[in-house]
């Protein structure tokens, strides 16, 4: 993967991020933050790579630590979002 | 007032010469000087001598018209059914009597339609008079001393007068409902934000009816209507009745028994009193009280707004004369459609269809 492709992907994703959020209802700000928080734990991918690799035990420990932290986030983030969203469920009449 | 300084000016501009009876403008707050300033001459009542067109609110006494040119026009609200003798007298002296209330309800004649313009004012004034006689306030007011609830007003007959009555009562804050026999009025009532009360199971008059007028209803309908009204009227504080059937006596809409169910202090205004009245017990030009309910019956309600009534009436006459004005002859010439509709007498004869039959 050359740098330009990566950069292109990065730039386009920024545009998407911009548009996706632009019209969000204020009442959803907090759930939205919780979800983006959970999603940004995709850094766990890096952590997994580090923990899986042989070679440097230091890297492994660091990686495992990161896995724990990221997991807290992933599970916590999605679960908490679900709880918050459940509040908006009550009125299905529309 | 069949002319105001404004229409005098406009008629003069057409090329007419005008003479105004002295003191005619008093009721509407117009002095003789104003008329003179507008270009009219002032004369005493018998000054019709030599006139080719005599304008009036009501038909003038034929005795005063001795001097008018033969074949001269009498243009006024002539009340042909009520004042038949007078019409005959016009015919006898060879005048051409034109009854403005027979103006057909066609689009181009709208601006000459004295019934509309006067009915409009009646509707407004009836509500004002009723509000003034009513011992409470119309609008809802929630105050520190307690709540004054909104008056309930019911308008029966939703022609021009009825619609204006609805509008005025709503303006004053009353809760307004209304009824009529013509189904087209249902939407019109709603278009003024009021509530239509209609006989549901018996057919009324679909659409606008012939020329926009109502006819007499079947007895079945009348019964259904009476029932509906009975249940509704007991809760009303103000009732304005405007129902008319052209050429016939006004339909009886409210009986004495129904009045007895109303709350003492309520007010009924019978705008049809001159045509026999919609309300049992209403008396022309009097406020009578029955079962604690005041029943108002002014025969000529627009006259209670003299200035506007004159302005609009005279404008109707002017619109009429100017629409048919023939420059060359220096006088108006009628076309067939409208001429036949309003001409009562011509060449010494009563010529109108409805008067001959």
């Amino acid at each position, binding site marked *: 993967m050359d740098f330009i492709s990566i950069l292109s992907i990065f730039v386009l994703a920024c545009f998407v991020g911009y548009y996706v959020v632009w019209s969000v209802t204020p009442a959803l700000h907090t759930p939205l933050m919780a979800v*983006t928080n959970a999603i940004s734990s995709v850094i766990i991918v890096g952590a997994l790579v580090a923990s899986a690799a042989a070679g440097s035990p230091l890297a492994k420990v660091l990686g495992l630590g990161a896995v724990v*932290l990221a997991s*807290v986030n992933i599970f916590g983030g999605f679960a908490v979002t679900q709880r918050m969203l459940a509040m908006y469920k009550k009125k299905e009449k529309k | 007032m069949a002319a105001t300084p404004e229409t005098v000016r406009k008629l003069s501009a057409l090329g007419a010469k005008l003479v105004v009876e002295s003191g005619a403008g008093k009721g509407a707050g117009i002095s003789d000087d104003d008329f003179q300033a507008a270009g009219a001459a002032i004369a005493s009542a018998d000054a019709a001598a030599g006139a080719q067109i005599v304008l009036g609110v009501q038909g003038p006494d034929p005795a005063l018209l001795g001097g008018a040119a033969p074949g001269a026009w009498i243009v006024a609200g002539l009340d042909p059914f009520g004042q038949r003798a007078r019409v005959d007298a016009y015919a006898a002296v060879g005048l051409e009597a034109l009854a403005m209330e027979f103006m057909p309800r066609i689009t181009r004649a709208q601006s000459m339609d004295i019934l509309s313009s006067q009915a409009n004012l009646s509707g407004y004034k009836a509500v004002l008079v009723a509000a003034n006689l009513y011992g409470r306030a119309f609008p809802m007011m929630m105050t520190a001393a307690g709540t004054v609830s909104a008056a309930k007003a019911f308008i029966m007959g939703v022609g021009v007068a009825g619609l204006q009555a609805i509008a005025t009562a709503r303006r004053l*804050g009353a809760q307004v409902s209304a009824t009529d026999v013509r189904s087209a009025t249902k939407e019109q009532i709603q278009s003024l934000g009021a509530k239509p009360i209609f006989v549901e199971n018996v057919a009324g008059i679909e659409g606008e009816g012939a020329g926009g007028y109502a006819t007499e209803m079947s007895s079945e309908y009348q019964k259904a209507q009476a029932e509906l009204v009975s249940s509704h009227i007991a809760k009303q504080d103000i009732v304005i009745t405007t129902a008319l059937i052209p050429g016939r006596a006004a339909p009886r809409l409210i009986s004495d028994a129904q009045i007895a169910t109303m709350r003492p202090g309520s007010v009924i205004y019978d705008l049809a009193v001159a045509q026999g009245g919609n309300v049992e017990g209403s008396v022309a030009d009097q406020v009578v009280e029955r079962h604690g309910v005041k029943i108002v019956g002014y025969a000529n309600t627009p006259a209670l707004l003299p200035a506007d009534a004159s302005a609009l009436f005279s404008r109707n006459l002017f619109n009429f004369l100017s629409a048919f004005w023939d420059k060359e002859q220096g006088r108006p010439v009628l076309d067939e459609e409208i001429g036949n509709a309003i001409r009562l007498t011509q060449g010494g004869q009563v010529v109108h269809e409805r008067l001959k039959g």
Partner: protein
Amino acid sequence: MEHASSPWVGLAYLVAGVLFIMALRGLSSPGTSRAGNRYGMIGMTIAVATTLVTHSIASLPEIAVAIAIGGGIGFIIARRIQMTAMPQLVAAFHSLVGLAAVLVGLAAYANPEAFGILDAQGLIEPQSRVEMGLGIAIGAITFSGSIIAFLKLAGKMSGAAILLPGRHVINLGTLLAILGLVGWFTQDQSAWVIATITALSFVIGFLLIIPIGGADMPVVVSMLNSYSGWAAAAMGFTLHNTAMIITGALVGSSGAILSYIMCKAMNRSFLSVIAGGFGAEAAAGGGAAKEQRPWKRGSAEDAAFLMKEAENVIIIPGYGMAVSQAQHVLREMGDVLKANGVNVKYAIHPVAGRMPGHMNVLLAEANVPYDEVFELEDIQGDFAQADVAFVIGANDVVNPAAKTDKSSPIYGMPVFDVDKAKTIFFVKRSMGGVGYSGVDNDVFYMDQTMMLLADAKKMVEEIVKALQH
């Protein structure tokens, strides 16, 4: 990394990225929000599974344990936490992402081979060094900044803005030092460089957030959220991982935009908030009343959203509605709510306005039906069932001091029990303005009250607009 694996792996990461996009998309409106959350979970599962599958699974047990521990903690916290503690929880979570990014960066430094970023000489590729350095720095800032935000939000640290003398110089200097070290790092991959970068970044995160007042914390949290995204993206560059890049960029930009939107809604300058330490006086909170009692500011969108979801809304108009002639648009708001199945009533106080029947005239003019208008005695009991009490330009007539405070000039007047409603929206122009009797109103400061500060007509117009979205 990827170079070694099949195109399916790349595709899987792309799918994960797209799922994350759909997650955020879903979260932008209430109707689709739950589906959005689910997309996010699926995306994350795909990303994790793909990574595990494509890497030697020798360490699987350890990893499984790590995930179980972390996941368990996260799950329990999420279940137990009180709804009111959400903001600080989100801040705390952010700090974890930041720390994770730091750890991953350090791991990559420790074992570059595993990350496939060694060049021919067995050194770390310079481009990767920059990415790594930036990733660690941003991660560290996110971590320490979020910690401060958490402490402030949780009330464990004064919410007031703490302004160090000379902070501008210190902050700027530290930031420049970090950037300089990242540059240096491309030349010299010694451990001290990366260690210093990490340490300085922790410090600057701390310094940047400390001077920001409590009222601006939500914006800060969102901004930190954005940072955590950039950190993930930086790591994604290092790993050439599509999922991380897409997600990082997505989170980064959406977080930034979100903070911007929040600032706008709060009438705060975006720059002065994010510049935090640099912005000077901006720190004086918009959330602290002149009386220094805390109150919450709401937006038209908040009001629209909550009223649309409500069963019962009671509108309490007062003199301010008359002054701004908001009656027509208020009626329209009622119409839209009714069309949404909400039960709308108007509560008219006997002395609302400045003349007897003042509200009645105006509401009648606006064609509010008489049967929706209630006097005090008739509606007092309904407040307990009301989801929303919408106070518009009224003040004295909802002031509980009339019931409790004998010294108050309005003592003895009956007032609406708005405090029994689940949520109170209070429309007035400013916190300073008072009613006819000139006294402060405790309702402003209640937990369930949101102040909608604007001209009544403008505010209701905004709400109607928001309702129709």
